[in-house]
């Protein structure tokens, strides 16, 4: 089981914009480098990319939740 962590402190988003679907849903294949969410830090949006491959299990951090650097954002199952 791999977790994807936040590279920066900020606000975490599951979706590219409020009207879109989340980047990933349970069961989706995840490749290294896939974007799984956004972290807004000081009005700048940074893409959060998977650093491991696997199958998407769930977001651990809520949509629009404040997160710290290194905090777990999502889990992959192998």
């Amino acid at each position, binding site marked *: 089981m791999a977790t994807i962590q936040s590279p920066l*402190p*900020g*606000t975490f988003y599951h979706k590219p914009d409020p009207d879109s679907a989340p980047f990933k849903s349970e069961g989706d294949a995840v490749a290294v480098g896939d974007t799984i969410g956004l972290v807004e*830090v000081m*009005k700048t949006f940074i893409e959060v990319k998977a650093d491991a491959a696997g199958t998407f299990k769930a977001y651990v951090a809520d949509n629009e939740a404040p997160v710290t650097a290194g905090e777990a954002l999502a889990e992959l199952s192998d």
Partner: protein
Amino acid sequence: MAIKRLLIANRGEIAVRIQRSAKALGIETVQVYSEADAPMLAVKQADQAVCIGPAKAADSYLNIDAVIAAARETGADAVHPGYGFLAERAAFARAVADAGMVFVGPSADTIERMGDKVAAREAAEAAGVPVVPGSKGRLETVDDAVRIASDIGYPVMIKAAAGGGGKGIRIASNEDELKTMAPQAQAEAAAAFGDGGLYLERAIRSPRHIEVQIMGDGSDAVHYFERECSLQRRRQKVWEEAGATCLDEETRQSLCASAVALAKSVGYRGAGTLEYLYDEAANAFYFIEMNTRIQVEHPVSEMITGTDLVAEMIKVCGGAKLSHAQEDITRTGHAIEVRLNAEDPFMQFMPWPGQVTGLQWPQGEGVRVDHFLYEGYQIPPFYDSLVAKVIVHGADRADAIAKLATALSATEIGGLKTTIPLHQALCADPTVQAGAVHTQWLEPWLDTGHLMPPQSQGAA
């Protein structure tokens, strides 16, 4: 009514700045803050502080009901909105007035009117302020466009009448280009907006950004001269000056007079800024918009005129007449402000909300720092990256740049990456020293590798 207890509906450096003037006027301060901002300097320095909600600005600093409730609860008789957040929301100004308090700014009606581009342009034209020449309304045919373009002069910018956000904008240098581009723009506008109507405006290439600081008391208005803010990245000002040395005295006078005329014509109250594009080749200026608030770069105007603009806006909004007659406001020397943002200028300006481990500020005559830092302070990641402004006042522009370079080398903010290296490189740049910049200058300068980390300098 003279204000006795002022609620500050903002955060960061401007909250600290407003408190300084309020205290100098003997006014009590109430500071609002979000859950993420409890440790901020403005909370520590205020007479009272009230938490108004979670970190997310939409639920705290942008929550009108929460701010009004905090003002009622603490018995505030006035609200200062600072800049950003609710500063230019007419609904907020109205809610403050409806609650029986003073809004430190213009009336809600004025905010509404000047915040609407079309209404602001009409108000400017009515007051005799030059605006960018353009078609009066929408154009339906290419023939109409060609006829109007010959009146306003090439190059012209072709915009979709229904559009926004820069979509479908084309620039035609002559009639042949216009005849080719106008039908394309029409088709694109029809596809994107369901409306093929076009609008034409003179395209001003490589303009300078010049703005005039005004102050009104509801009937009279004065100016505090102009600022030049042409050094911009992604439409954000990074370096601001007072005055604009590219202007001759006659142009300066007519520019500043035009700003006062517009302020008077709308019965303006409080501090405001009229922004203009300046076409240096034609020595012509054009009004683009008005900001109905105090601005980030107000200190440079304070430095050259020896005034306190924040105190003055609090006084006039509390019912006082203007403190200064126009002839009593004089300018001396040249001032520059640079914005220190918590960003890494060597990594595409990536935000860097770190913890402040050490602080060293520049000292000396004509040097000022507006900031909200202290040792140990953890910068929250939820808001703007501006953490400090270094402001210098010199005998002339060259002296101010030299003073700025010295001030920046004496500044140390431990634990953060900041834009100090950007400003040091700008101080050393011959084009900046010559003042030969415009709003499209900084980004290509950055893209062509003029800013390099110290260790790799000269390697390219």
